Each structure stands twice: as C-alpha cells, then as structure tokens.
C-alpha cells in the first residue's frame, strides 16, 4: 500500500489546483445530497409535527360516557388517550395509537363493543373520526405503510435523479484530472504495474480526496439545508401556521445522522465509481497506447471550420482544441446546459402554476367572466330563523369597513304553469349584476329595479321549454308559499322543524320579462334585482327560508398582486367569528377556516405560500447546480490551458502574440457558452411550446362542451411566459462566458510569468520539496475552528449570564446559598423577623416570580418576612442535572431555606403547579408548614386521561419531546438564545403595563437563561409527577387559602380581554377584536366549562382539607400583580384568623 499512498499523495500535492477543483466538486455534490436528504427528514418531521399540533390524535370518539371513555382509552394498541367533557354531558375521547391495530374499522367496532357503546359504531352522523393524515404519517392503520413508502419512493426517485446529475460533476472532475496522467499510468504499467494496482492507485487517490471533501460536504450541506429551511420558513410556510401556538416547535430543524450517513455513502460510492471508471479505461489500453495517447489526439483534421472562417488563425486553433477534447467539451456543455435550462424554466413554470390556480379560483366563482373582480370570501349570510335578513347582514359587512365589492345573490324556484317544470330565478344586487354582465348589459340594473322585471338566460337548458312564453315578455308561474304558524318558536328550531310548522299554499304569478342575456354554465333561467326579491319576498313567501350568498373582497387591498396581509386576514377572520355568533354570516367549516371553501383569500394565500416555498427551494437547488456547473467550467478551462502549457509556449515561440493567444482563449469560451446557450434555448422552446400545446389539446378535447371564450380563458391560464426564459438563457450563458473568459485570461497571465523555455520544458506538475500535510492540516483546522466556536459561544453565554447576575445582584435580589449540589438564590424581603415567614414558590416557567410579586410583597411585608427561593434552573439559581421530581424540589427548597437562615415554620405561598410542592411538603413535614396560600393552583386530574401536559401538547412522542428539550437546553448552554432571540412569539408579554421599567428589565434578566436542564426535566416529568401527586394527596389540618382566577361572569371575561388589549397596546401591537363581542362569544363557549372547573376545584379543595376558597378576577399568570390589595388583605385576614 505504501507506494500507492505515495503516488496518490504526490499527485494530489503536485496538481494542487486540480485537486482543489476535484475536492470542491465532491464537496458540492455531497453538499447537495446532504441538503436533499436532510431536508427530506426535516420536512417529514415538520409535516408530522404540524399535523400533530393541529390535531394531536389518530381517532376521536364522541358521545361516550365517562366510564366508557376511560375503558376505551385502555384498549390494546393505544399509546395515549385524552378525555374531554362536552356541554351535552357526554365525553369525547382523543386517542393516539402506539402500534398498528390492523383493520381499523374492525378494531373500533370491537373496542366499542367491549365498552358497551356499540351503537356509536352505527350512529349517524358518525360518532368517530379518523385523523388520516397523522395516521399515515405515523404509519398506523390500513395502507399507512404504503403511504409512507409512496412518499419515500417519490423522494427516492427524485434523489436518484439528482444523484446522477451529481455523479456527472464528480465524474467530470476525475476525467479532467486523470486525462493528463493517463500517460503516467501507461508508464507505470510498462514498468510492471498490474491493472489492479493501477485501479487501486486511482481509487486510493479518490478516497484521499473523499476524506477531506466529505466532511466539508456534509457540513456545507447542513448549512445549505438550514439556509433553505430558513428561506422556506420565511417565504411563507410559517404564515400558514399563523396563530399556531407552537409554530416554532412544530417546524423544527433537526439533522438525522442516518441521512448524513446515506449522503456520505452516496458520495463515497460516486467517487469510487468515477475513479474506477477512469482506471478501467486506462487498463484497457496497452502501456504504449496509454503513453502515446496524450490528452489530446486529433484523429481527423477538418481543414475549414466555422470559427476558423470567422476568427482566422486563433479561431481555427480554438476549434481544433474543442475537437480534440470532445468528451470534455461535451461534458462542459452538458452541465452548463442543464443548469441554464433549469434556471430559465423553473421560475417561469411556478409563476404559471400560481397564475392558473388563482385563475381557477376566479373561474370557479365567476364563470370565467373576465371582468369579474377578484374575490376573497364567499359566505352564506342572513338567518331567517333569527329574523336576520341578508340585507342586515350585508349592511353589517359594509359597516365593518373591512370589505368592498359585496356581490349578493339569492335563489327562488317557481314552477311553470305550462309544463310543471322548475324555473330557477336568481336575484342579484348591483355589484353582482355588474360582475356578471359588465356595465353594458342589454337591460340596465336600474331598469330591473324600477320595473321589478327579469332577464332570461338563453344558455340555460330550461330555456327551450319556456322559449315561446319568454319571448312574449311575460311568464305565468306558480310558486309554493309557506306561512309560519303563529305558535312556531323559531328561536330553537332547525330547518326541518320550520318546514313542519309551515302552512303551504300555491299562488299564481306573472313575471315581467325585459330581455335576454347569455350566461355560461348557469342553470338559472331568470335573473332579477335583489330589490325585487325583497319586495315580493314577504308578499309571496310569507317568510323566506333561503339565505343569500355574498361574495366580496378586502377593501383597499387586493390579493391580485400577491400582497397577502396577515393583519387584514386576521381581522376578517375575527370579524367572521364574532358575527357567526349572531348568524349574520356562516363559514362552511368554521373549525378550519383555511379549509373552508368560502375562504378564497386563505386558499390563494396558502397556494402562494407553498409556491413561494417551492420557488425558494428550486432557486436554491438551481444555485447549487449553477455553482457545480461553474466549477466544472472553470476546471475544464483552466486544466485545458495548463495541459497545453508547453504547446502554447511553442506557439508563442514561433511568434504568436499575447493578443492572438487571448483571442484564442476567448473563442474557446465562446464555443462552450454558445453551444450551451443554443441547446438550452432549444430545450426551453421544446418544453414551453410542447407543454403549452399538450395542455391546449387537453383543454380542447376535454372541454368540448365549453364555449370558445371559456376555452380561450382556460388556455390563457396555462399560458407560459415566452420571452423571460429565453432572456434568462441568454443572460446565464453570458455570465458563464464571462466567467470562462476571466479564468482563461488569468491563467494565461499567470503562466506567462514563467519564461517560455520553462513552460515548454516543465509539465504542469510542480512539487514543493518541503513536505506539507494538506489533509492533516485541514482536518485539524476544521476541528480547531469547531472547538473554538463552541468554546467561544460557551464563554459568551457564561459571561453574559454573570453580567446579568451582577445586574440582578445590584438590584438586591441575589443571595446565593448552598442547596443540594447547586447554588440556590434565596431572596428575602419585608420585616426582618416577621410574624410569619412567607415562602413564595414559583409556578412553572415563572423565572422572575420575586420581581413580579413586588407589590404584594410590599403589602405583606410590613409585619411578615417574605422569602423567595428559586428552585434549580430558575431565576439565578444554579442548574441541576437531577431529575426534578416533587420530592427533589421540596428537598432543595428546604435545604436552601435552612442554609439561608430561615427556620420553620413557614407559610408556603405556591403559585400554579407549585401547590403540589407545598402540599407534599405539608404532608411530609407537617410541623414545618404553618399554612398554605395557593395562588391559583394546579389541580391533579383524577387520572392522566383527563389532562394534557406541556410536553404532550407539542410533541408526538416522549422521544421527540426529549430531543426538543435537549436542543433547547443546548441552545441556552451555548448562548444561542441570546444571540438569536426567537422572534416567532407573536403575543404581547402579559401584564407589561403593570410593571415599572426597572421590574421589566429585571424580569428580562431572569428570562435570559430560559431553557435550563432542570426546567426541561420538570417539563418532562410533569405528567408523571402530577399523576403521582393526584394519587397520594390526602387531607391535612394545615389551614389553606385557595385563590382561584376562574371567571364568574361575562364581565370577568370582558375585563380579561380588555387587559389583553392593554398589553398589546402597551407594546405597540394592534389588537383586532372588539372586547365586547369577543367576550360575549367567549363566555358563551366557556360558561359550562367553568361550571365544570369550579366543581373540580371544589373537589380538590375537599381533598386537601381545611381550606378556604376565594375568587380573584385576574389572569392566572400574574393575577397577584393585578390584584395585590385584594390578595394581600385576604392573606392577612386568613393568617390572623388561622394562626391565633
């Protein structure tokens, strides 16, 4: 192996430039592979997480009783079940499967049977629902594996295609660098190297390059992938998840080592294949052939060439050069062509796709009417049951000021007196009429209004039957009218009931026909003004059961120019939500507005976002390919010149001038660029015109029934921009040409620095006699840089933490004492040796608890001592790697307090989840706890089925949660959270208005270290600990005061919303809902939930024994800062009473 090693390393060193090019090619290829594989796993993760966050279950079953719910959650295959009470006193089960359950319908039937709820299986509408997307992604249920396989196959085919393109890059690099050496391999063979040895030398060299190139390639690939992920997220994907609470966690960027391995292996295999190919080609020749076959054999010589004619001597030499390196020429032109074509076509095609989707939406709604304005929403408006007419609804829409162009239409059906057939009449308002027929309709809208007449649609299929009468100008019809009976209570009736309570009557009428119109695709025979409907509505129908349709768009902003506006959109959605309560408007699927077919704005936006993402991705890919093509081009051009070094020198010796030489080089580049440009242009033309004509044929053939206009419209939609792609081709060919010229000229200049004889004599290979260790040095440099970066970040993070801590200390909050293995910060305030030692225990993630309670402390501290120990990882207490169980935390608190010199008994004042610590404390050490004041505590549910925990909420599995926590902790550990603060959190900081600037600054200092190991342990153990506490809690004699922030009336809700509004405004953000309406809606929704919660709270209070319950109107997170007076006086009273 020794001499192979020797040769390989010498060649790498001697041909530095080429080695670098080969390395860069491998790096580029591996980087692209890595990027693709990493992005695949990232997008699968993101997809799964988003599906999960949308609906974190595979199956929902409604209509269960409590026992049935609990029973069904313990059936086989179920990983996690959640139960929820509904207002109608049944229970809904949300189920996540852990393993495949086989045929799912059989499974659910059996499961329901077992819990005695078999009827649910047959009930209609269905009482259970499968979440297909998540099931597919998790590989659970029929065909799910197939789904995953399908996705993987699609990806795989794509990856293979790309991989082959990359193979070409590596191949070229090897081809180019080995050409010159073919002679040396011939010599080696002639002195007795066996074919295997030759192949081994070449592959060995390849592997040496791999060792350098692949790690860099992987690294570069990850960077690219991250960049692309970032671009994609920024380009619109994240907008799709507007309002999703954990958008950041749901779209994680994680690198799967398996994927890196695959990319590396593919890279190595490609290098091996390329090297092997070169080796095989060489050993097919006899040594003498190899020795004589220099890189450049001209087989036949054409006396006259085009470029010779055009450019004289320089031209004919240049064209001969191209001929003798046919393969090289072909490869260069090919790579250039591929990247130029992709660049030219992709962006045009995505634009076309977006245009046609937008056009499709338009066409669906406006029947291909060119003059129709773009619409953003379509809604059903009015509610006859509640006596709200569509006119009122339209007025409400108008009054909101958010929308314009409100086109309204409603339908009525008559029967023909002649043939008893149905006649549909459509009543439209002015906007809709203009949108349908333009401004120059044969009959003006005003005429329709003033006469109460109609126009008929000659394209309607019913037209023939009634043609004769319609021509005559009047159409006798009869209609079935309904009158509601007096005793009907419309408030609580659905449509069917109303029909039952109506009385029917046939009435004959004569409709006044004014003229004709031509409408495509419409079944309405008659069009009338909406005023007519209003007028005759009451007269004929007694009461109208029909609602109207409204189509309208945003006022002032149009989605036409793709400027989507999140604020407007949110306003609109809030408005719809608020008004659907009163049934002004009805979205078809209010739970998922983005899937609502009436929400065209949402659809268009979503399409736009996805396409923008695709475009960004394609652009990145394009960039990489262009880079690869450029590397190839430069490699080939510079190698071409270097190899012909002595030859060019000979030319100069016989009198060629520098200028002629330059010209020759430039003509060579022109050949490359020109050939590539021409081929790309041809390919573009074929694709563009081919695709267009195929689409046109499809349209022509499959829409035979449509009118010419419609077809033209459709063709217009799929039209592809003809000019831009070709301009792009020209532009990129020009760029390639320029790059090539610059390289050639630079190469020629540098070569000409040596004397001509030197150039003639020496081959390109120059070897420094001193030994260098490129491989070792570059690896050391990379490793060193990595370690330095890590160390630098860590130092930064520690320094920043200490600076924060000093600031905190200056404010007088720092008092570090030993706890179990870490330094605990025990802040105390109030009276020195007060009546009571009140110990405040922070709730989950409440890092700045002692700062936030300042007002309360002032009120309580007059006679009492207040102590705030921060548990591990909170505030400025040290971090701890111990599992943060309730027991551990309580022991830490006790140790900290003791070491800080505060002796029991204590009055514990826990917030939120800390109530469990306090209760545990009083159960274990009753003597140490004088009383407990619970600030809106956490109530352990009766079983884990009845609650969702922080980690479960956001992550499909415990492993995913753990991985995410590790990442967050690492992020904090390296200080990345400080350097790149997360801006995705959209909401306002709660209660910002309540605190002074100084307090806000201090609480920011505390939160700077947000995500510590101890905190993440708390989150991960939350479920286990809460469930466990729920099991062991028992009544104690310790007196307890329980503050609850549950709403007690609608006024509380309104106040909460007002507070939220104040928070938003304090930060200069806009708050779009009207508190009044929002509160009414909210209260309606939560009223029964609150009843439920109250009874749970009472149960809990009962369970812990000796309690007093008090309601405080405030927000759970900071109510102690919102209502300090009320809380303080209650506490003081309570302490006075209970500890006499």
């Amino acid at each position: 192996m020794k001499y192979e090693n020797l040769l390989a390393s010498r060649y790498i060193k001697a041909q530095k430039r080429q080695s670098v090019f080969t390395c860069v090619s491998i790096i580029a290829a591996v980087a692209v592979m890595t990027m693709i594989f990493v992005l695949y796993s990232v997008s699968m993760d993101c997809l799964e997480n988003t599906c999960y966050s949308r609906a974190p279950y595979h199956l929902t079953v409604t209509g269960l009783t409590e026992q049935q719910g609990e029973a069904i959650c313990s059936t086989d295959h179920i990983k996690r079940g959640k139960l929820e009470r509904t207002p109608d006193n049944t229970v809904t089960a949300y189920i996540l499967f852990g393993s495949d359950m086989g045929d799912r319908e059989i499974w659910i039937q059996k499961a329901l049977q077992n819990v005695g709820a078999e009827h649910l299986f047959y009930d209609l509408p269905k009482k259970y629902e499968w979440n297909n997307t998540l099931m597919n992604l998790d590989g659970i249920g029929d065909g799910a594996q197939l789904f995953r396989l399908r996705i993987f196959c699609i990806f795989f085919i794509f990856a293979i295609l790309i991989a082959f393109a990359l193979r070409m890059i590596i191949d070229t690099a090897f081809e180019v660098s080995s050409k010159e050496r073919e002679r040396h391999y011939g010599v080696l063979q002639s002195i007795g190297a066996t074919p295997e040895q030759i192949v081994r030398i070449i592959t060995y060299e390849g592997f040496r390059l791999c060792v350098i190139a692949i790690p860099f390639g992987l690294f570069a690939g990850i960077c690219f992938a991250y960049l692309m992920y970032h671009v994609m997220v920024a380009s619109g994907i994240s907008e799709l998840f507007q309002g999703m609470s954990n958008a950041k966690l749901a779209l994680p960027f994680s690198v799967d080592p398996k994927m890196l391995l695959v990319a590396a292996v593919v890279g190595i295999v490609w290098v091996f294949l390329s090297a092997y190919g070169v080796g095989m080609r060489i050993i097919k020749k006899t040594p003498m052939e190899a020795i004589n076959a220099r890189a450049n054999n001209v087989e036949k010589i054409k006396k006259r060439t085009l470029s010779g004619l055009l450019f004289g001597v320089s031209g004919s030499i240049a064209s001969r050069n191209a001929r003798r390196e046919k393969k090289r020429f072909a490869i260069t032109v090919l790579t250039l062509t591929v990247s130029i074509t992709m660049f030219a076509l992709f962006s045009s095609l995505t634009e076309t796709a977006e245009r046609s989707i937008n056009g499709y939406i338009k066409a669906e709604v406006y029947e291909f009417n060119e003059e129709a304005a773009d619409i953003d929403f379509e809604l059903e408006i009015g509610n006859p049951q509640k006596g709200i007419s569509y006119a009122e609804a339209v007025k409400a829409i108008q009054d909101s000021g958010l929308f314009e162009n409100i086109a309204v239409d409603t339908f009525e059906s008559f029967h023909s007196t002649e043939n008893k057939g149905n006649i549909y009449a459509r009543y439209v308002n002015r906007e809709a009429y203009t949108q349908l027929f333009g401004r120059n309709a044969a009959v003006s809208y005003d005429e329709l209004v003033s006469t109460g007449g109609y126009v008929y649609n000659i394209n309607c299929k019913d037209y023939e039957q009634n043609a004769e009468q319609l021509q005559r100008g009047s159409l006798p019809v009869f209609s079935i009218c309904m009158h509601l009976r007096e005793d009907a209570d419309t408030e609580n009736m659905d449509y069917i009931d109303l029909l039952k309570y109506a009385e029917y009557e046939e009435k004959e009428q004569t409709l006044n026909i004014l003229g004709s119109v031509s409408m495509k695709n419409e079944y309405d025979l008659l069009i009338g003004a909406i005023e007519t409907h209003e007028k005759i509505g009451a007269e004929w129908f007694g009461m109208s059961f029909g609602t109207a349709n409204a189509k309208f768009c945003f006022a002032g902003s149009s989605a036409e120019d793709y400027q989507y506006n999140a604020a407007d959109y949110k306003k609109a959605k809030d408005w719809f939500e608020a008004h659907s309560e009163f049934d002004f408007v009805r979205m078809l699927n209010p739970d998922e507005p983005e899937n609502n077919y009436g929400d065209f704005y949402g659809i268009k936006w979503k399409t736009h976002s996805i396409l923008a993402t695709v475009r960004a991705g394609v652009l990145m890919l394009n960039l990489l390919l262009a880079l690869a093509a450029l590397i190839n081009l430069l490699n080939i051009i510079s190698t071409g010149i270097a190899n012909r070094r002595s030859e060019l020198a000979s030319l100069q010796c016989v009198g060629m001038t520098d200028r002629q030489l330059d010209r020759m080089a430039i003509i060579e580049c022109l050949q490359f660029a020109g050939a590539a440009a021409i081929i790309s242009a041809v390919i573009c033309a074929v694709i563009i015109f081919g695709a267009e004509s195929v689409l046109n044929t499809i349209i022509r053939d499959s829409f035979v029934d449509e009118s010419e206009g419609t077809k033209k419209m459709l063709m217009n939609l799929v039209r592809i921009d003809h000019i831009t792609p070709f301009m792009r081709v020209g532009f990129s060919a020009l760029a390639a040409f320029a790059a090539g010229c610059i390289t050639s000229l630079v190469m020629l200049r540098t070569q000409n620095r040596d004397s001509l004889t030197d150039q003639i004599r020496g081959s390109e290979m120059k070897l420094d006699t001193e030994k260098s260790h490129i491989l070792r040095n570059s690896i050391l440099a990379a490793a060193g840089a990595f370690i330095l970066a890590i160390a630098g970040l860590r130092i930064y993070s520690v320094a920043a933490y200490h600076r924060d801590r000093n600031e905190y200390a200056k404010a007088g909050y720092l008092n570090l004492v030993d706890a179990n293995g870490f330094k605990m910060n025990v802040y105390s305030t109030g009276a020195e040796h007060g009546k009571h030692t009140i110990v405040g225990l922070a709730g989950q993630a409440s890092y700045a608890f002692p700062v936030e309670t300042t007002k309360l402390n002032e009120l309580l501290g007059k006679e009492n001592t207040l102590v705030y120990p921060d548990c591990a990882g909170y505030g400025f207490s040290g971090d701890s790697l111990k599992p943060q169980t309730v027991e551990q935390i309580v022991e830490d608190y006790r140790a900290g307090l003791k070491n800080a010199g505060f002796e029991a008994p204590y009055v514990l004042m826990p917030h939120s989840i800390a109530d469990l610590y306090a209760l545990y404390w009083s159960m274990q050490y009753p003597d140490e706890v004088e009383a407990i004041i619970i600030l809106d505590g956490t109530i352990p549910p009766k079983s884990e089925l009845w609650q969702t925990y922080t980690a479960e909420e956001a992550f499909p599995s415990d492993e995913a949660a753990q991985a995410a926590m590790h990442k967050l902790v690492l992020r904090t550990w390296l200080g990345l959270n400080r350097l790149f603060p997360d801006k995705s959190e959209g909401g306002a900081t709660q209660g910002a208005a309540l605190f002074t600037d100084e307090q806000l600054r201090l609480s920011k200092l505390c939160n700077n270290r947000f995500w510590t190991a101890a905190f993440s342990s708390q989150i991960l153990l939350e479920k286990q600990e809460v469930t466990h506490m729920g099991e062991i809690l028992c009544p104690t004699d310790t007196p307890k005061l329980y503050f609850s922030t549950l709403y007690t009336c609608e006024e509380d809700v309104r106040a909460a919303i007002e507070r939220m509004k104040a928070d938003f405004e304090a930060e200069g953000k806009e708050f779009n809902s009207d508190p009044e309406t929002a509160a009414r809606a909210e209260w309606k929704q939560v009223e029964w939930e609150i009843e439920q919660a109250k009874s749970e709270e009472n149960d809990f209070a009962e369970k812990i024994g000796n309690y007093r319950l008090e309601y405080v109107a405030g927000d759970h997170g900071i109510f102690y800062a919102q209502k300090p007076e009320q809380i303080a006086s209650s506490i003081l009273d309570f302490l006075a009473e209970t500890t006499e």
Partner: protein
Amino acid sequence: MELLKVENLCKVYGKGENEVKAVDGVSFSVPKGQMVAIVGASGSGKSTLLHMIGAVDRPTSGKIYLDGQDVFQQNNRELAIFRRRQVGLIYQFYNLIPVLTAEENITLPLLMDGRKPDREHLEKILDMLGLKERKDHLPSQMSGGQQQRVSIGRAIFSSPQVILADEPTGNLDSKNSAEIMELFRRSNKELKQTIIIITHDENIAEQCDRILVLSDGKIISDEANAAAEEADRNEI
C-alpha cells in the same frame, strides 16, 4: 540455447491511406547472455520492435517467445508481472513519473512487486550512474542526460533477465556513454543478462556481440560482430 525468439512479427499503424508498416515480418532469436545492437535509419521501426519485445505494445501479428513461453498468451496481469520481473526497458524519451524523485523512480518497480529495495544495492547503482547528488530531485529538475540515467537505473535495478535499451546514450557525452556501456557489458558478463540496444552510434554497436540492421521494418542484415568477440577474448 535461445532465450528470446521473435517469429514473423508485424506491427501496422493506421488504416487505409495512412497505413504504416512499422515492423514488417521480423524473425530472429537471441540466445541467453547475448548483447545485441539494433541499428537503422530514423523511422525504420526499431523502437516499435523493442516495445513489443518488452511487452508494452501488442504486435499486429507474429509471436514472441521468452524462455519458450509465448509472451502475448498471458493475460494482462501476468503481462504486468512479466514486465516487472523479466525485462528492463529504457525508453528513448525516458518516461519517468514526474511526481517521484530519482530514487523513488528507480525503486518503483520493486515497490510495486511488494519487495523492499536493498539500500546498499541502490547506493551502488546511484553511484555508478553518477546520480548520488540528484537522488532527491524530481525529473523536471534534471537535465535530459540525468533523466536518461534515471531511466537506465530503473531498468537495471532489479537485475532482470533481459534489458531493452532504446538509445540509452542518446543524450550522453562520450565519457558518460562509455561508462554506461561498460555497465551494460559488466552485467552482461556477470549476470548473464541478455541485452538489446538500439543505437545510432557505431562505437556502441561495435561493442555488441551481434548487430541487426533494420530498414523499413525489415531486417536487412544480421551478423555476429567479430570485433566484439575479439575484444572479449582479449579480456580473458
């Protein structure tokens, strides 16, 4: 006892109009230990013939036997081993590996054979060729004559049975060429090596046992060299 036998050897380059019969039906045999000179006008096919004997080029037709074995019956691998162990070829245009130093170039065949070069032997050969000072230089840092000497060193280093030299003294001064010829003659005598030398130098041809004259790819004369036999006898 004949070591090398060439039978009706032909080599044709090109096709049709461009066809060149570089070697045209050459037959001869060389007994072990003979020193043969091949002379002839430029372009008469000497180098082509030598390359085929050295198994670095395939004949168009005809056969070559070494030690009774048909050389081109062997497969590529065996051919490579044959080249490595049986013959030492000195090229007209040196054909050194440009990235290896003189010493590395000389020892390369042995390294490829998986053997360790004997340092003493190497020193001796470098000394003989006058390359002691140049042993760590690359080919591009050496003069034409020095490069030629390196290629001679590479051919004789492993003491093969047959040495094929294509104008080995073409770039050397008379003193140096005399030394090289002396070297050849010594190893011819001591190791019973068979040596075939192509030369334009009559002096050198005179020192060989036998002189083959080539013209247009054919042997036109093949005679024993009386003067050389005389000289040998005198030496004894």
